């Protein structure tokens, strides 16, 4: 299911662009990964005695798998609201550079910030990866509508998965739960590796993987931020040095 060429008349309608975005949900294996991850989140919420409405609300409002897992496990283990909020905020820092790097690719000269509000909310790892892959195939003035379609499609899939997991919870074996948790690192690693276009991307990925275990021994509470900014900056330095040479 390829997208129509950039000059196709199909792209003249924002609604068609939205539909094409929604249809693109079926073209990526990450949809399956998200489905399984949200089955796991639904089951986790059930076991931690949250209501179905609560966990569906968290999927719509939070829309970031790791943050939802952290929120449910910290609150479920009796942490205070402040402790849970801090843990979620630290895990969500990665969303900031993702939003900064994706939004400029959607903007036209007439775009106001408020037009990008919903697209910014939809940005999480999956949408970040898919936007870098798909947006170059979409005419610039239809990219926001396309992203809205893609985001709504993925959200619908995840709401169904959350409900399924919530219903199945009691019947999920430990091996299945371990396999679901393993999906996140595998899919994040491979989809990021496929998206590497420049030497700085490859270096950032490799250095980020290598530095985290070292920084984690310091137990600063913001280990991921420290290792991420250092590794990313070194990677950018290598790019700058090569470009200059």
């Amino acid at each position, binding site marked *: 299911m390829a997208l129509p060429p950039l000059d196709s008349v199909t792209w003249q309608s924002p609604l068609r662009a939205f539909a094409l975005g929604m249809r693109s949900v079926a073209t990526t294996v990450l949809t399956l990964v998200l489905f399984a991850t949200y089955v796991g989140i639904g089951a986790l919420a059930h076991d931690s005695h949250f209501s179905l409405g609560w966990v569906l609300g968290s999927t719509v409002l939070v829309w970031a798998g790791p943050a939802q897992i952290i929120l449910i496990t910290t609150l479920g283990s009796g942490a205070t609201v402040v402790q849970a*909020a801090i843990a979620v905020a630290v895990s969500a*820092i990665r969303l900031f550079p993702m939003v900064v790097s994706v939004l400029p690719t959607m903007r036209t000269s007439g775009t106001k910030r408020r037009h990008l509000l919903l697209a910014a909310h939809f940005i999480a790892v999956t949408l970040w990866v898919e936007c870098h892959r798909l947006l170059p195939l979409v005419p610039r003035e239809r990219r926001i509508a396309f992203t809205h379609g893609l985001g709504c499609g993925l959200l619908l899939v995840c709401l169904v998965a959350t409900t399924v997991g919530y219903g199945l919870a009691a019947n999920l074996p430990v091996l299945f739960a371990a396999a679901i*948790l393993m999906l996140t690192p595998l899919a994040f690693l491979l989809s990021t*590796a496929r998206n590497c276009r420049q030497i700085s991307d490859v270096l950032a990925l490799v250095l980020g993987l290598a530095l985290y275990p070292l920084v984690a021994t310091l137990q600063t509470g913001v280990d991921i931020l420290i290792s*991420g900014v250092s590794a990313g*900056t070194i990677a950018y330095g290598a790019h700058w040095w090569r470009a200059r040479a």
Partner: protein
Amino acid sequence: MSDWLANFLGDPHALLVLVVAGFLPNEVWRMLGLWLGGGVDEGSEALIWVRAVATAILAGVIAQILVQPPGALASVPDWLRYGAVAAGFAVFMLTRRSIFAGVVSGEVALVAGKWWLG
């Protein structure tokens, strides 16, 4: 009907906690990104740096799950987690970067190893 709805939504206090501890601390980063990213030029050098940092932070999240595994994943020995990722990555490279083949192989390695260990 109202019983069903009350049951579906659960404790109103828990919904407030969802907004305060889940939605707001998460969304603030997206809104900061929107506020700042709204003005960055697509071809700028700063954006290459930002993308490198985003990639490296994501690499950190991946490493964290593997090194300090949550929940049921902690029941899998270290060597098996690392081995499963290595197997998945090897197949990914051999299949000309097929994410599907890589993810499936990694999962098969994990489940087979765990099953074999008993």
